[in-house]
């Protein structure tokens, strides 16, 4: 039995669940945090969303059938939680999700937990102008360094379509950076 299957078995057993869940969080907390942070931008929001994503994993682990990798399944939950968070924020502020993201990117220079250079700041401003799917693909490929097969598992999109999305995203971002 490989280590992932063993961990899933322990997670689905009420006797060993909590201990196994602590191990799971230790393994994935940083990767999931950065994935969420790239979507929601602010540290406080990323912290909230990460906790909610882990709680969702804990409560639904008994339904995990193993059709995809545990890692992909958790990434999917984290992605959905992040998007839900942005939607809620947009609803509260009575603006569009795109406007929320533009505001978040525009306020990065005042964020204590943003230490990027000028190009990194502009990159964020360019990124939020892309369609959501292209943003996700770019983040997962460029920053998370994920393989297309794994991104395909998370987003449920073919590898070919993902390659095209990434290509378009890079071109648009480079155009923005070159002309701004």
């Amino acid at each position: 039995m490989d280590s992932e299957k063993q961990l899933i078995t322990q997670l689905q057993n009420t006797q060993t669940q909590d201990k196994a869940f602590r191990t799971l969080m230790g393994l994935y907390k940083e990767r999931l945090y950065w994935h969420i942070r790239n979507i929601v931008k602010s540290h406080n929001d990323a912290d909230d969303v990460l906790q909610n994503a882990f709680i969702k994993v804990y409560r639904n682990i008994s339904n995990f059938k193993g059709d995809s990798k545990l890692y992909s399944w958790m990434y999917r939950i984290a992605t959905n939680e992040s998007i839900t968070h942005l939607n809620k924020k947009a609803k509260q502020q009575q603006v569009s999700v795109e406007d929320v993201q533009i505001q978040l990117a525009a306020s990065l220079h005042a964020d204590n937990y943003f230490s990027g250079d000028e190009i990194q700041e502009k990159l964020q401003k360019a990124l939020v102008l892309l369609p959501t799917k292209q943003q996700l693909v770019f983040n997962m490929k460029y920053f998370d360094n994920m393989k297309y097969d794994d991104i395909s598992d998370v987003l449920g999109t073919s590898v070919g379509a993902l390659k095209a999305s990434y290509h378009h995203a890079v071109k648009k971002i480079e155009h923005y950076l070159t002309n701004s």
Partner: protein
Amino acid sequence: MKNAKKHIDIEALNYKNAGFSTPKNYFEGIETKVFAKINSDIPDNYFDSIEDKVFAKLASEKQTVKVISFKSRIVKRFIPILAAASLVLFIGLNFLNKSETTTFDSLEISDISTWLDSENNITHTYALGALLDTDDITTLSNTSTLEDIQLLNYLDNINLEDLNLNN
């Protein structure tokens, strides 16, 4: 001549991260925070559905109140009527000629007395009093064939608290 814009190749820049950072030691406390939330026992989206739950509970309470109200109305209004009907029917079936039409006025005092002796559930004077209104009692007094001496003997032996004088 125009200055050619310098193309920025994002892949060549190869940023390892987006420029975000976290508070010091942030990752060390996540497990504890997550378990604290899990153990707080408030299910996901609990607050999203609380209004529906409250309204559902209020609706079920209203239904319960209606059932109690209906029951008490039955007891108050129909039990005396059923008792009176039972009295008439019992005497009619057992003591009167079946060909005659039975009414309360046509009953003999002895028939009523026999019924009272045999029907234990309405022999209490309070229950009997509840069946009669003031007019019924006045009519009974005016048409009574009891001798004064009999009435005085009765009053000497009855417990006044058993009479339903507030009817």
